[in-house]
């Protein structure tokens, strides 16, 4: 049985934050191999490995690389999305904190594949400890002459969820407010500073050296046909042992929650599971055998997202949870597109009304109507991300929403696990608020 440790391989034997430790674990041998290959051959290898993007969308990395206009007279850029901000996700933080050189080696290999001489790693501003580790690793690798003609810069963000969206990230990296761009043109054609740009998630890039080291066939021995390899799943919420677990793609959700996570904490009952971070539709306990890979989770009506699995027990009021999620998206909406900017405010107001017991049944329909007016109508997916939790909680826990209306208040009577949770938006006085007409 092949072991499901790819990204974190070697961390149990060596301190992989040091150059010596990483070299002892076979580090920086894949880059030698890659530099002996032509960019075309390298891209073909990535395509054969069918490495799918670990950031959310699952787009095949090799195909992305093949879209780069390598003949362009402009410089080519590789940008690593290390702006991990999806609620529930903390996998990239572990990669940068424990195997920074694997990420750096992946950058060098990918840069060779797309003929880029400049790599920017955009790390979220809050990850200060990980920034320090990564920046030191970059210095060590540079000092050891591993970079060749390539320059690697670690760029810190300053706190904005939207900058995890790839075109907002590019604007932020260019020194602007992080707001998404219209597409087309797509980044491989016109990305950073208007030049061809490859953007990949930390987990994707850090997997690349292991594909060369193991070879495509061995790499594909773990995982499933449509999603080979492993992923680090971030497990959180009401479980006994939360944390990161690297597993083969296709591992059943049940195994993650019960075998790795020790099951629901305090002997409580499982109520709901968020499989890919707060922005994806919720799953119900009858779906606990869903395999954790891109296609299977989509067939179950949700998304792989950022592999962030949140476990929710029976003490949680789903209206309160939806309200807290909606407040997050309202806070993080960049304000560029009207449906997202205004729609998230409407959602917060309607959910507040429902939770307070002031809503009529028609407000539930209005809430779904608002969702419908946001979905697919903004430049980026943040609007959709705001909709998925709200509409899926409402659809799958409809009786609970109706009970709030009929009982003129929260049926949990102040005993919900997320009762009264404060949101950062509640601290702001400067957000102009459109009012939902009564």
């Amino acid at each position: 049985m092949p072991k499901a440790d790819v990204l974190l391989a070697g961390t149990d034997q060596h301190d992989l934050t040091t150059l010596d430790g990483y070299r002892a674990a076979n580090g920086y041998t894949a880059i030698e191999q890659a530099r002996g290959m032509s960019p075309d051959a390298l891209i073909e290898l990535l395509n054969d490995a069918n490495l799918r993007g670990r950031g959310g969308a699952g787009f095949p990395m090799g195909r992305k690389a093949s879209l780069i206009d390598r003949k362009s007279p402009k410089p080519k850029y590789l940008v690593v999305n290390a702006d991990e901000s999806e609620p529930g996700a903390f996998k990239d933080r572990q990669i940068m904190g424990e195997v920074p050189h694997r990420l750096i080696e992946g950058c060098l290999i990918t840069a060779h594949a797309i003929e880029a001489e400049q790599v920017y790693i955009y790390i979220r501003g809050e990850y200060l400890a990980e920034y320090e580790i990564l920046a030191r690793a970059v210095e060590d690798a540079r000092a050891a002459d591993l970079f060749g003609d390539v320059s690697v810069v670690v760029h810190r963000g300053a706190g904005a969820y939207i900058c995890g969206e790839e075109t907002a990230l590019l604007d932020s990296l260019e020194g602007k407010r992080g707001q998404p761009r219209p597409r087309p043109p797509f980044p491989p054609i016109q990305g950073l500073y208007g030049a061809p740009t490859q953007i990949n998630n930390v987990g994707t890039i850090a997997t690349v050296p292991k594909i060369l080291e193991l070879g495509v066939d061995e790499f594909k021995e773990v995982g499933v046909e449509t999603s080979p390899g492993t992923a680090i799943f971030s497990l959180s919420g009401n479980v006994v042992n939360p944390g990161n677990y690297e597993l083969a793609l296709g591992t059943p959700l049940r195994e993650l929650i019960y075998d790795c996570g020790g099951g629901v904490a305090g002997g409580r009952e499982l109520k709901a599971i968020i499989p890919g971070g707060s922005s994806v539709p919720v799953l119900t306990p009858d779906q606990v055998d869903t395999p954790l890979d891109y296609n299977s989770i989509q067939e179950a009506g949700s998304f792989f997202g950022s592999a962030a699995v949140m476990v929710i027990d029976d003490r949680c009021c789903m209206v309160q949870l939806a309200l807290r999620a909606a407040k997050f998206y309202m806070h993080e909406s960049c304000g560029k597109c009207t449906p997202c900017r205004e729609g998230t405010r409407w959602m917060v107001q309607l959910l507040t009304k429902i939770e307070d017991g002031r809503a009529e049944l028609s407000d539930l329909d209005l809430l779904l109507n608002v969702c419908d007016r946001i979905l697919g109508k903004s430049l980026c997916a943040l609007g959709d991300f705001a909709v998925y939790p709200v509409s899926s909680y409402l659809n799958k826990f409809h009786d609970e929403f109706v009970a709030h209306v009929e009982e003129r208040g929260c049926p949990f009577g102040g005993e919900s696990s997320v009762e009264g949770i404060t949101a950062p938006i509640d601290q702001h006085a400067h957000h102009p608020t459109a009012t939902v007409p009564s």
Partner: protein
Amino acid sequence: MSDFATEVQRVASLYPDRRSAVLEALRLAQERHDGWLPEEALREVADALEVTPAYAKSIASFYDMLHLEPVGRHVVEVCTNLACALVGAQRVVEAFESELGIRSGETTEDGEITFRTVECLGGCGYATVVAVDERYRQFVKPDDVPAIVAEVRDAEG
């Protein structure tokens, strides 16, 4: 050239467009101005990068870690996003509010500590996550709060 301007130039040289250094410049300016960005700080950034102060402010107002209002000598932040909320972040928030005698979003009267709730810090498996001057404390329980506050008050600012 001042140390600040020299450092901003060094960062700017890493990019084809010097404006890419604006977040780092604002961060450095904030460190020099007691943790926030008064008009003077925005002007310094603008001068160093040859942009207008209004441009610097438009960037500063977009990002959560850049402050346009004064903050305390220390900033304590509690994550209250879903994963932390599910395991009792609100009780940690209330413990801080009671220990400090202020509401979230406020600064203690002596100007020592600003306390606020923040969105997901990426420590969901180690909830509740508290950031003290950007350094994470994990698995924080309400009972841990008095000791954290005492430690922050004793720390060099």
